[in-house]
């Protein structure tokens, strides 16, 4: 398998697009339903918490910039337990990550834009796109990200600027109406979607960056850009739509794009703005899927992951059709099960790895003595 090398700039851009990912569609509604008009405060708190979590995850990266998560587990847990842990991690990530995001875009399209199209058609088409991207490899994905990121920024900033005239500052008042207690669950729901899944990047980036010692900085910068974009979109949802409408809508950011109205002339450009979500969702699905493909190829010692991509993509498309039986199930699952799952995988798991690594470092001589005496 030829060596993949991407630059630091590409790492930042991929991280930013991955952070924004599906969060731009689903985060404002969930946060506004918990924290009402203080969702923007919760977003700031969540970003702070997110960077702490990111520091833990990136500590793995900084200790051994060339070893990815799969190799860490195999080294620390031993071969068989490590492989079992890796397989469980990959299986659950597969179900919770790309399959649900692919379903998400299916629901989004069938609810908002193409109500008479069956969801399978959208899922298969978008899944085929992700398979194509992942099969071509990380370098191609990174270059595509570099090419599409300016378009994303253009759409995002133009949407923000065009919405300035619709802002009602009174929507954000009263600040902290019900105290700070609803801030914590809202921040947690933000972190669970925007920051905790960054553990996936620890499978992709180690060993794939040309200046690996500095790659963690690039991940920080990308996450910062992503968090800023999410903060803007949450703030705009609250200020333009108001907390009630934001909480009641499934996709408030799409509703925001519908609100653009400049002199009764420039209006209803939400279909153009939807390109923005296609870009971010594509990179979210592709990075998840790429991580799973290379993870599986490492667990089974397959040198070339590319032949696995098409069968895995088939499984992905087939599973994501029935991953959520209905929309209430999805909302319930995202709010109650996805949060503890990502806390376990994205925070506790790297923490356990780090502790084990520290213990190993502390006791190298003792174990050698024991083995000598035995």
């Amino acid at each position, binding site marked *: 398998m030829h060596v993949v090398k991407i630059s630091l700039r590409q790492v930042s851009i991929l991280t930013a697009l991955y952070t924004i990912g599906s969060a731009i569609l689903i985060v404002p509604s969930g946060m506004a339903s918990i924290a009402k008009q203080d969702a923007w405060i919760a977003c700031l708190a969540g970003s702070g918490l997110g960077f702490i979590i990111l520091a833990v995850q990136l500590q793995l990266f900084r200790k051994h910039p060339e070893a990815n998560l799969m190799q860490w587990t195999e080294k620390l847990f031993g071969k068989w337990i490590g492989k079992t842990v890796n397989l469980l991690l990959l299986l659950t990530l597969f179900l919770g990550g790309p399959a649900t995001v692919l379903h998400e875009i299916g629901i989004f399209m069938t609810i908002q834009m193409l109500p008479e199209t069956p969801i399978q058609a959208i899922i298969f088409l978008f899944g085929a796109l992700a398979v194509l991207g992942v099969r071509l490899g990380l370098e191609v994905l990174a270059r595509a990200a570099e090419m599409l990121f300016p378009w994303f920024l253009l759409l995002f900033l133009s949407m923000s600027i065009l919405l300035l005239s619709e802002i009602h500052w009174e929507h954000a008042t009263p600040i902290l109406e019900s105290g700070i207690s609803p801030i914590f669950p809202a921040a947690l729901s933000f972190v669970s979607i925007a920051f905790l899944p960054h553990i996936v990047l620890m499978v992709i980036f180690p060993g794939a960056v040309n200046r690996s010692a500095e790659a963690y900085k690039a991940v920080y910068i990308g996450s910062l850009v992503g968090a800023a974009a999410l903060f803007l979109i949450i703030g705009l949802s609250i200020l333009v739509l108001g907390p009630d409408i934001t909480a009641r809508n499934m996709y408030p950011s799409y509703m925001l794009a519908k609100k653009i109205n400049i002199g009764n002339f420039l209006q209803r450009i939400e279909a153009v703005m939807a390109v923005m979500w296609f870009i971010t969702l594509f990179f979210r699905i592709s990075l998840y899927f790429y991580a799973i493909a290379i993870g599986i190829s490492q667990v089974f010692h397959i040198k070339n992951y590319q032949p*696995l991509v098409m*069968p895995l993509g*088939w*499984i992905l498309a087939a599973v994501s059709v029935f991953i959520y039986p209905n929309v209430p199930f999805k909302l319930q699952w995202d709010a109650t*099960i996805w*949060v503890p799952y990502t806390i376990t995988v994205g925070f506790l798991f790297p923490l356990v790895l780090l502790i084990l690594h520290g213990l190993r470092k502390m006791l190298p001589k003792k174990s050698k003595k024991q083995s000598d005496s035995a």
Partner: protein
Amino acid sequence: MLNIAIIAVSAAVIVWLELPRMLREQEYREIWGFIAFLVIGIGISLAQTIFNDIPTPVSLITIVFKPFSHWLSMFGLIQ
């Protein structure tokens, strides 16, 4: 019946796209992995066409993480 035919045709297309290159380069591990995952994928698709209603696989994650979820909601961290 049409669905099963479509599944068979797409499986054949995927095999035709991938297998010759792997055979030429004698990547036998890759071939085993490819066939295993393709069989799983075909199995899921067939199950979907034959039984209309399959339970969602995320319920497995739900069973494992339910206690943790309850514990978090006791602290008011999940609403």
